[in-house]
């Protein structure tokens, strides 16, 4: 299928569907294979090159769009994992309402004792006939309070080394025993949650992948997460440098040579990082995905932190917009005042893999450097020091 074919297909779809009925339109778009064209037919795609998605987006620009903020985890992480590891039945059951936004997803991965070392997680799932009984505590779960489903990694075998005893599930967030508590951040808001799982029963057909294969399934999720966080396209002068440049241009009285030189350096760094993202996306489209993706989130965090710190200093603003403890609806890096952005950006080098973990991954997987001596490799999970 080439560009002309797909345009033709889109024209036919548009002719047959009324964009005024948002939900019906989106359902029809999914059924027409125009959700994610590189997915298989019948699952919202046409089984064609990912490159052609651009054509779809361009042609359907004026029609109802997804809510990528609230749907982010479903679209960016759950969907590719379900596609890669789900049964036909799971794919058919979950992908359509996930894409249309009828069902929101969240991610139950991190635990208080398992952050960078996710594979050490302790949430237990014990088989009981056709069901699994799950007990444990997850943390840093965004959107848990309006989610229908979650992707969940659990420990199913404590007697084998940590990477081998995990199993991946789809968790029913409406099941008894699921308790969601807001987790307040240093910004004052509660963008995330703690999720307590107490005797939660999940039927075995919610298992994604084989028993004991949870680590491999989770890797697919994480890889997609990291590209999602740092990889969004920005225009020159966009992203975190945008609000700084606005203040800079509007307030000549705030300028100093010190700030000027630092801002120019950050402008350059923003621009080469942007170019690097452009190049990365060109590689993806050309079907030559490079290792550069691993670095995008790292650069993104560093730049966001430097720029938001400079922004506060430039404004010399000792105030803060609002410390009210409230739930935020979705992730917001650029909204609100400079102080909020400064504090929120601190999370960018922690969430979705700390910068330290990303540097480990780059040095080992991209640069081929040897790993450190491992003390936890052949030790059963239950015998690990904590």
């Amino acid at each position, binding site marked *: 299928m080439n560009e002309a074919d797909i345009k033709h297909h889109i024209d036919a779809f548009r002719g047959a569907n009324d964009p005024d009925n948002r939900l019906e339109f989106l359902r029809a778009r999914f059924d027409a294979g125009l959700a994610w064209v590189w997915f298989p037919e019948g699952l919202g795609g046409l089984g064609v090159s990912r490159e052609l998605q651009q054509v779809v987006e361009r042609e359907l620009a004026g029609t109802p769009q997804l809510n990528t903020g609230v749907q982010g985890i479903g679209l960016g992480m759950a969907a590719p994992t379900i596609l890669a590891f789900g049964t036909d039945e799971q794919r058919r059951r979950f992908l359509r309402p996930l894409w249309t936004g009828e069902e929101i997803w969240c991610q139950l991965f991190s635990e208080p004792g398992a952050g960078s070392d996710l594979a*050490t997680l302790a949430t237990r799932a014990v088989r009981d006939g056709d069901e699994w009984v799950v007990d444990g505590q997850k943390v840093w779960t965004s959107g848990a309070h309006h989610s229908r489903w979650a992707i969940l990694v659990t420990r199913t075998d404590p007697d084998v080394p940590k990477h081998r005893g995990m199993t991946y599930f789809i968790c029913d967030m409406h099941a008894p025993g699921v308790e969601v508590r807001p987790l*307040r*951040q240093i910004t004052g808001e509660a963008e995330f949650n703690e999720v307590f799982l107490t005797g939660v029963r999940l039927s075995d057909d919610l298992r994604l992948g084989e028993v004991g294969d949870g680590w491999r399934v989770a890797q697919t999720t994480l890889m997609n997460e990291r590209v999602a966080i740092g990889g969004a396209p920005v225009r020159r002068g966009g992203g975190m440098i945008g609000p700084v440049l606005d203040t800079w241009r509007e307030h000549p009285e705030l300028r*100093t040579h*010190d700030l000027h030189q630092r801002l120019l350096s950050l402008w350059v760094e923003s621009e080469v990082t942007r170019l690097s993202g452009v190049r990365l996306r060109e590689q993806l489209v050309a079907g030559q995905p490079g290792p550069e993706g691993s670095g995008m989130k790292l650069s993104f965090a560093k730049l966001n932190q430097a720029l938001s710190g400079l922004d*506060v200093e430039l404004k010399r*603003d*000792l105030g803060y917009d609002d410390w009210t403890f409230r739930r935020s609806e979705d992730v917001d890096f650029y909204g609100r005042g400079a*102080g909020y952005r400064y504090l929120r950006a601190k999370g960018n080098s922690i969430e979705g893999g700390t910068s330290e973990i990303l540097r480990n991954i780059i040095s080992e997987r991209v640069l081929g450097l040897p790993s450190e001596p*491992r003390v936890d490799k052949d030790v059963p999970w239950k015998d690990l020091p904590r």
Partner: protein
Amino acid sequence: MTLLYSEVEEELRAAVRGLLADRCPPAAVLKRVESDPYDLDLWKTLAGEIGVAGLLIPEQYGGAGASAREAAVVLEELGRGVAPVPFFTSAVLATHALLATGSAELLGELAEGRTTAALVVSFAASPYQPWRGSSVTVDGGTLSGTVSAVAGAEVADVLLVPVGGELYAVEAADAAVEVVPSLDLTRPVATVRIVEAPARLLGPCDLAEVLRFGAGLLASEQLGVAEWCLDTTLAYVKERHQFARPVGSFQAIKHRLADLWLDVVRARAAARAAAGDDSAVTVAVAQAWNAGVAVHAAEEALQLHGGIGMTWEHPLHLYLKRAKACEMALGTPGDHREALASLADVPGPERGQQ
């Protein structure tokens, strides 16, 4: 002049540290920070019993007649505890301004800790731009105007307002002090509005000099903030295990902490130098270095604490907010470096050059 701590200073430190550990550990500071940030009971004990309120006030006025070096040690400890007491604003900034006027009665009250004062200047003003944020004028024995971002004003009984080259006293009741949501939760700032308030002329005020004196001592508070962040992080990474090892056994973490320690070592030398010598160069050096070290220490502490550092429930963010606010207080590091251009004879490009 020595850069070491004297025995007397170490005793004073131990007394302050002990009291804070007992009465107001960081978790307690966090608990009160949204309702009633200042702990005035603690302040009463500190001011009166330990006698820090009158530290800088000569004995003739009822103070301890100590030097800035002792005040600096107190500030180190208060920084280490992000202690919510008006020591810096009342017993350092306001007291130093008052000393130049020789106002015996008010000094006596301050020394006893009965009265708390605040200097009505923007905390974002600096020795180089002392009037930033202030619009107060005198008219026939009354003052009118607004000063933004004033620290310590809401707990002051008396407001000391510099106008022109003079210092005036205004009763707190005669001004409108509106605390605004502040980046620094433990030392919020307020907008002070004065409308034809009766004012008492106290005497001359060299505001740039007062702010320089304050900036020099603020470097010791910044040192304390940085030290807490370093120590707390060291303790955490020794304890926290990931990959079946203490996080602090990972070499990349170790090297960053070694570098941070070296920054703090130099901040200590700079703080001691500024505590013993409030010349413009020494103060500018201490602020240019220590402000950045405090922010860097707090930022590294947050990162190395991982997720827990991003939560409201851990007191770390109080230090980050204090450090970042202090970076702007009494001159940014950039302002102080810029001042060194002439103070240290490192002039900038001449006009017409790029």
